[in-house]
């Protein structure tokens, strides 16, 4: 739990009622940062002065009888691929080092309007490409629960910030599992919402048809509140769901009586560690005990998700990252002509993983290969959706491990393909656009947390959170052990 020992909901309630000052809450979190940030490196940039000014504003508003909003005074960390006006936004890449966006991402504005206090921009795998935050150009982030281990990625810094008590909440992005996997590794609740529920305007794009922004929190209720704040139609995002979403917070507490839960067979195979599988079975039992029925759901195409993802995501990324050419912003390596300048800049500015994915994506789209690679992968998405839709005819939510293992040690997955396998269970819902979240449920022999994944149909956040809540209660009453 955070150094302040309070959830976001508790903090906001305290600040709004005048019982606590936002400034005091902030100072506690800044003290935690002071103490451990050098070791953890969750942040690319700590915004201590800005946060203090903002916290003071919140306190002044409360004193004046105004309501700063549902996240009043809550310290929030933002993944450094979210545009913050006038504040460097780097994607943990040299090519954007020092770049100050002239605008705020929609979710940043929404959070600010709700009274949140931003404590810093968190570290990530460069351009969100990775599963360990080891690909950051500014050095890795360490798992606060065991600093020899990775926090996961790509949103490793956001996960670490909450796990270490640097902030009460954080925001990450998830393209293939980049919120859920770090959440599992760090013992947090992490949510990838339905595609289109949260505006992508201001999220620096990696895989446009896959990217979604979501929260990290200690509790399901905190995650629900945060998601309620940041979700909603945005006219600046053409892929934004038009209808106003139902409140998740208000739906909590309903329980899971009669809910039909399906364990995804193909994600319970031997790619998964035994303890992760056990956690899922325990979770299923807990839900049953709470009134749900549990069965098995088969999604054969799920095993092809990785293959499809590692064609689609790099393809879209190769196009999204073309703009980093040294012309309008960011790093420039000068040369005699523009073409050479583009090449020198990109070669010097991008790390190896980014280069790898750009080349892979370029290849998958290139003349003669489009049909076999990118074209085929887009068809697999259709297949996946059909199979999930069929499963959701029989089940309200599905269950699987979040990751094949718990947090691994630094350097353990130096081979790119072994790193990609971390995303086996999380990738399918990025491909389908459905909702998914990771909830901590038990620990391994080394006391590293295990995450269990809940999956729901598009806009099925309410039943998903209700099930998550039931698991949370069960984990608490079991003392956190599976």
């Amino acid at each position, binding site marked *: 739990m955070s150094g302040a020992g309070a959830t976001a909901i508790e903090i906001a309630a305290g600040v709004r009622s005048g019982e606590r000052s936002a400034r005091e809450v902030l100072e506690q979190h800044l003290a935690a940062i002071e103490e451990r940030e050098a070791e953890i490196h969750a942040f690319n940039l700590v915004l201590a002065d800005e946060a203090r000014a903002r916290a003071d504003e919140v306190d002044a508003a409360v004193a004046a009888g105004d309501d700063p909003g549902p996240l009043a005074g809550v310290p929030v960390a933002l993944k450094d*691929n*979210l*545009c913050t006006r006038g504040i460097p*936004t780097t*994607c943990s890449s040299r090519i*954007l080092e020092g*770049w100050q*966006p*002239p*605008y705020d*991402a929609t979710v940043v504005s929404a959070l600010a309007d709700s009274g949140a206090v931003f404590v810093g921009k968190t570290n990530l795998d460069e351009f969100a490409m990775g599963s360990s935050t080891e690909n950051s150009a500014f050095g890795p982030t360490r798992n606060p629960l065991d600093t020899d281990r990775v926090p996961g990625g790509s949103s490793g810094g956001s996960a670490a910030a909450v796990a270490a008590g640097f902030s009460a909440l954080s925001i990450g992005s998830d393209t293939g599992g980049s919120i859920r996997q770090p959440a599992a590794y760090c013992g947090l609740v992490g949510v990838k919402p339905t595609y289109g529920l949260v505006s*992508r*305007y*201001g*999220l*620096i*794009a990696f895989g*446009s*048809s896959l990217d979604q922004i979501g929260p990290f929190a200690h509790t399901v209720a905190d995650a629900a509140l945060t998601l309620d704040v940041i979700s909603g139609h945005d*006219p*600046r*995002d*053409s*892929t934004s769901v038009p209808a106003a979403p139902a409140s998740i917070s208000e739906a909590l507490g309903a329980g899971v009586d009669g809910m039909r839960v399906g364990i995804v067979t193909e994600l319970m195979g031997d790619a998964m560690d035994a303890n992760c599988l056990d956690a899922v079975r325990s979770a299923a039992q807990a839900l049953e005990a709470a009134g749900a029925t549990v069965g098995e759901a088969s999604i054969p195409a799920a095993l092809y998700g990785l293959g499809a993802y590692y064609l689609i995501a790099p*393809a*879209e990324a*190769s*196009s999204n990252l*073309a*703009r980093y*050419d040294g*012309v*309008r*912003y960011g790093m420039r390596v000068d040369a005699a002509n*523009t*073409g050479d300048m*583009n090449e020198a800049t990109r070669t010097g500015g991008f790390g190896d993983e980014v280069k790898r994915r750009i080349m892979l994506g*370029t290849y998958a*789209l*290139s*003349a003669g290969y*489009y049909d076999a690679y*990118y074209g085929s992968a887009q068809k697999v998405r259709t297949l996946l959706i059909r199979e999930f839709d069929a499963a959701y005819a029989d089940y309200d939510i599905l269950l699987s491990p979040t990751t094949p293992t718990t947090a691994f040690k630094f350097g353990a997955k130096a081979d790119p393909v072994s790193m990609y396998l971390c995303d086996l269970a999380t990738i399918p819902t990025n491909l389908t656009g459905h909702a998914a979240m990771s909830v901590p449920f038990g620990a391994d022999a080394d006391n590293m947390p295990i995450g269990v994944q809940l999956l729901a149909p598009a806009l099925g956040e309410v039943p998903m959170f209700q099930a998550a809540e039931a698991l949370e209660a069960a984990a608490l009453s079991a003392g956190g052990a599976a």
Partner: protein
Amino acid sequence: MTGVAQTENELDGWQIVIGLEVHVELATNTKLFCGCANKFGAEPNTNTCPTCLGLPGSLPVINGTAIDYAMKLGRALHCTVNPAVFARKNYFYPDMPKDFQTTQYDQPTNAAGYLDPPTGGRVTIERAHIEEDTGKSTHIGGGGRISDAQYTLIDYNRAGVPLVEIVTEPCMHDAEHAKAYVSELRDVLLTIGVSDAKMEEGSMRVDANVSIRPAGSDELRTRCEVKNINSVRSLGRAINYEARRHLNLYNADDAPFQETRHWDENAGRTLPGRAKEDADDYRYFPEPDLVPLVPTADDIAAIDAAMPALPSDRREALAAAAGTEPSAAALAVERGLDPLALGAIEAGAPADSVMKHVNNNLADGPGKLEAAAFAKLITMETGGDLTSNQVKDVLVELVDNGGDPADIAAAKGFEAVDTGELESMLGAIIAESPDEWARYLDGDKKVQGFFVGKIMKATQGQADGKVVNQLMASKAKG
């Protein structure tokens, strides 16, 4: 074909093959994917935002009016309007903020249309798709030419402006046809109001794809794309130059290679364009940040219902009323005189007289002349109430100030002189001038003016010279 001698008809034995790609800037208030102003001539980079600058994290949202304009354009060109998907065309160029262009690839909005220029020769149109414009580069140093520049400055005001690219089949075979197509296209664009289509300002840009082939064959040989054509006249010059360049190459046992060339208006020739890198592999894929366009039958019906009369419709209408060919009605329509002509014909004026006046005496347009007055004036002319010179005078007055022709004629003191009166006058003058009459009878044409002059003087210029000549001729006969 080698060693063909250069004859006066320089393309003897060969046929030019021309396809045109015309980019039209749509005259919407805002850009295609963002709310920045779509305005020519603003201070550099003052109409830009995260989206049209392609800043990290930005997203596009489609301007609905741009789509309406594009569909209207498609229907005016008789295209089929289809469901469409935007795609990314990926390549690096500094005037492209995202280093990809958002365009339409295999599912364009408009396909399979045509345009009939007034001089004939239907031009078939393969597609008319929607895409965003790029920024503008200015090359500094080296006389403004790309190849000698020291550096380049870029203004993104134009980046993101909505364009429709209209691609014809390679169905034109001479420069005049191509020019006629472009002129007619421009008239259509102005009529439907989707663009101001100014080549000199770049709101209509014409690129010509030119190749040649032996006359009578249907092969398609290597073509070159010619850019930087800034007027219809330049288009003709560029096509002819390029065709000749290809001919010279073939005659020298050589051949053109496929490239983009740059028309130099001052030098009067095409020059090699920028160096081609690896064959352009644009790696098109559907734009993930946009959702598909699905026009309904109602949408298209509404566009058709609201379509104004196009130049070809107007030519046909006037030709039908005048009992002539559409090409004969072209000048009238071009000058906006067809409503007037139609009205006059409908009011009973003889069509050939109407058309004669419209084509010869109304070069500046109708002005304040109205159909009823026009018809009345022509009736007065054919009835012999006014001479042809008097008619012209009254016409000028009607165009400038409007009014009634009879009133104007009276005010000017114009009266046609009765033919019988003229005859007796002529008789009197002949009696007075027997020598001159004798010379006329002898065949002296020059003395004709003497008699006409006398009669003009006697009638204060109101006699119709033609009638006098006719009277003299018939008197001479018998």
